[in-house]
C-alpha cells in the first residue's frame, strides 16, 4: 500500500496557505512596484550638506529620485570641478552667487524660466534681481538662501562689546588663537571692511590694496592656523581657536546649537553676505526634475529645511518660508534673529547698509589675492 506524503504548501497549497501567501503578496505589492519603477539619479554639485537626507530626503521620496552629491569648498573649487567634467555631468549646481557670472560666461549652466519661481514673495527686492543672476533679461540662477559673515568668537574669551569690531582679532587675549577659514576671499574682505572700505571693499585701487595687505600682515602674529570646514569646526569646538576670521553663523550656529560657547556677530564696520543659488547644469537630461527641486527648495517647506540644515544653517529668502520657520521652529528663528523687530534681523542689516554681498576682486585678479594669501600664510 502506497503511503502518500503530505504535499508541501507551495506545490499543493491548502486554503490557509493560499490566504497566507495572498496576504503577504498584497502587502508586498507597493514595495515591488516602487522597486520596479527605476529611481532617477540627480547629480548634484554643492557645498557640503545640500545632498543629505535632511534636505533632499522628502523630495527623493515624493519624486522617486536619488541625489548623488559631489561636495566642494569654495567657488574656485566648484569651477575647477565643473571644468574637469564633461558637459551634462552635473544636473544641479549650487553656486556661490558671485560665481554665477563665471558659470554663465563659461557656458556651464542652462537658462531658467523666471515664471517658474516665486519672485513676488522675496523678503528683499535685491533677491529678485541678484547681481550676476540675470543676463540680457534672462534668468540663469535662482537664489535660495543666504547668511552673513562677521566676527566669530568664543564668548568666554571676547566680550560681546569687543566683538562689535574686527579690532578684537588683535586683542592680546587671543594671541595665537585667531584662526582663518582657509579661503582668501572672506578673510581679506573682512580686513578690507576693517580698513574702512565699506561698500567698496572689493573695488580696491593700488593704495587701498596695499593697505589691506599691510593690515592683514599685522594680524599674522595673532594667527593660530588656517582651516578647512572640518578643521574650523574642530578648532572652535575644542577651544584651540578663540576667534575666527572669514566665517559666520554658518559654522558657529551649528556649534552653538550643540552647546559650544561661540557666537557670530556683524561688527560695526559691516559684514559680508554669502549667497547660494541653484543652477541647472548645461546639457542636463533631467532639467525638469531639477526645476521641480529648485521650486521645492523655495517652497516654505524647503526654506525651513534650509534654515535647519544640519551642516550649516542659511536664512530664508521668501516671506512664506520665514513665516513657516517662525511657526514650526521659533527657537531657531529667534537664534538667527529672523524675527520681526530684532535689530540684528538679517534683512534689517541689509537695509541699513551693514551688509555687503560677497564678490570677487574688481581691480586685482583672484591670483593676485591668492598670491598674497600664500605670502601671508608663509610669513
Amino acid at each position, binding site marked *: 500500500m502506497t503511503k502518500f506524503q503530505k504535499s508541501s504548501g507551495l506545490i499543493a497549497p491548502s486554503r490557509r496557505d493560499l490566504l497566507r501567501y495572498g496576504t503577504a503578496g498584497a502587502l508586498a505589492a507597493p514595495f515591488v512596484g516602487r522597486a520596479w519603477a527605476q529611481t532617477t539619479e540627480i547629480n548634484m554639485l554643492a557645498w557640503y550638506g545640500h545632498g543629505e537626507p535632511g534636505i533632499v530626503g522628502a523630495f527623493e521620496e515624493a519624486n522617486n529620485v536619488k541625489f548623488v552629491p559631489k561636495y566642494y569648498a569654495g567657488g574656485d573649487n566648484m569651477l575647477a570641478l565643473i571644468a574637469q567634467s564633461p558637459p551634462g555631468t552635473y544636473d544641479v549646481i549650487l553656486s556661490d552667487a558671485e560665481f554665477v557670472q563665471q558659470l554663465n560666461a563659461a557656458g556651464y549652466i542652462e537658462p531658467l524660466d523666471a515664471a517658474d519661481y516665486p519672485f513676488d514673495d522675496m523678503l528683499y527686492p535685491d533677491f529678485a534681481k541678484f547681481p550676476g543672476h540675470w543676463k540680457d533679461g534672462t534668468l540663469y540662477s535662482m537664489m535660495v538662501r543666504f547668511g552673513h559673515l562677521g566676527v566669530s568668537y568664543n564668548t568666554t574669551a571676547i566680550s560681546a562689546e569687543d566683538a562689535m569690531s574686527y579690532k578684537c582679532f588683535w586683542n592680546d587675549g587671543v594671541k595665537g588663537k585667531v584662526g582663518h577659514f582657509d579661503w582668501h576671499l572672506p578673510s581679506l574682505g573682512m580686513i578690507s571692511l576693517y580698513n574702512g572700505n565699506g561698500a567698496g571693499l572689493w573695488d580696491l585701487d593700488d593704495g587701498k590694496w596695499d593697505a589691506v595687505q599691510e593690515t592683514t600682515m599685522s594680524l599674522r602674529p595673532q594667527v593660530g592656523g*588656517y582651516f578647512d570646514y572640518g578643521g574650523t569646526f574642530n578648532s572652535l569646538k575644542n577651544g584651540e581657536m578663540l576667534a575666527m576670521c572669514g566665517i559666520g553663523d554658518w559654522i558657529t550656529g551649528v556649534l552653538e546649537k550643540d552647546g559650544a560657547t561661540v557666537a557670530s556677530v556683524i561688527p560695526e564696520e559691516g559684514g559680508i553676505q554669502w549667497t547660494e543659488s541653484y543652477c541647472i547644469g548645461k546639457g542636463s537630461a533631467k532639467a525638469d526634475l531639477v526645476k521641480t527641486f529648485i521650486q521645492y527648495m523655495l517652497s516654505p517647506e524647503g526654506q525651513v529645511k534650509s534654515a535647519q540644515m544640519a551642516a550649516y544653517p542659511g536664512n530664508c529668502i521668501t516671506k512664506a518660508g520665514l513665516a513657516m520657520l517662525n511657526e514650526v521652529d521659533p527657537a531657531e528663528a529667534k537664534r538667527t534673529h529672523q524675527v520681526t523687530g530684532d535689530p540684528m534681523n538679517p534683512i534689517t542689516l541689509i537695509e541699513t547698509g551693514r551688509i555687503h554681498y560677497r564678490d570677487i576682486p574688481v581691480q586685482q585678479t583672484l591670483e593676485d589675492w591668492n598670491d598674497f594669501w600664500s605670502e601671508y600664510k608663509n610669513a
Partner: protein
Amino acid sequence: MVGETAHPTAMTQRLYALTFRLPLILWYGAFFVGPLLFTVAMSFFLVKNYRMVEAFETVNWARMFSRGFFWDAYWRTLGLAGMAAGLASLLAFPAAWALAFRATDTQRRWAISLLIIPFFTSYLVRVFSWYVILAEQGVVNAIIGTVGIGPITMLNTMIGTTVGYLTLVLPLVVILQTLALSSIDRDLIQAAGNLGCPPRRLLWRVILPTAKTGLIIAALIAFILCFGDFVSPYYLGGSKPPTLPILIIDTTKSGQQWPRAAVVAIVMIVTLLAIAFAAVTAAYAKRGKT
C-alpha cells in the same frame, strides 16, 4: 648552421621574458610616465577664464620661481621631511634592535603584526584621533597638568606636524629596520664579540655598516612619504606655515591654476628623484668606495 638554429631560440626566450615584463612596462607607461609627461606639458599651459588653454609659455615657471613664499615652502618641506625621517630612524632603531636580536620568533611575529595593524585604518582617521590627545584640553595636557605643567600648545604647530609624520612612517620604519637587522649574519656579530669588540664599536663597525642598505632605504621611504604628505601639516600643523603639498592645493583652489601647481609638483618630483638617487647610491656603496 648552429647560429641559425640558436637565433629563433634566443628570440623565443626574449619574447617569453617580455610577456612577463610587459604588464609592468605598460602599467608604468600608462600610469606613471604618461601622467608625468602630461604634468610637464601642463606646466607650460595657460589659464583663461578658469579654463586651461594649451600653450607653451614659461610664465608659470617664472612666476612661481620668483615668489619668496614658494622657496620658503620648499626649504621648509625639505627640512621637515628630513627631520621626520631622521627622527623616525632614531626612534625606530632601539625597537628594531630589540625585535631583531632580543625577541623570540613568536614575539617578533606578533610585534610585526601589531606594527602593521595601524595601516588598516585610514591615515586621515589616525591623524584626526590626535586631536583628542594633543588638544589644549586633551589627554597629554591633562596628564602634565596634574604636576603643574602646561597647557602646552601642540596642535597647529610644528609639534603637531611632526607627530602626524611619525604616525605615518614610524611603524613602517621599525618594520624595515627590523628586516634589515634580522638579515645580519649572526656569526659576524659573534666573531666580533669573541675578538673583544666592545658593544659600541660592534654597533658602529659591524652592525650599522652591514645593515646600512636597509636602514638608508627605510629612512628614504620615510622622507618620501613625509615630503609629499598633505594631511599632517594641514590638519595637525594648521597649515602654519604651509608646505609644498599645501601650496599645490592653495594654487589649484584659486583661479584653477593647475599649471602653476604642476610647476610645484615637478620641482617636488625632481627633488625626490635626486635625493632617492643619492640615497640609493649611498646605500649600495662599498666601504672605502664612493
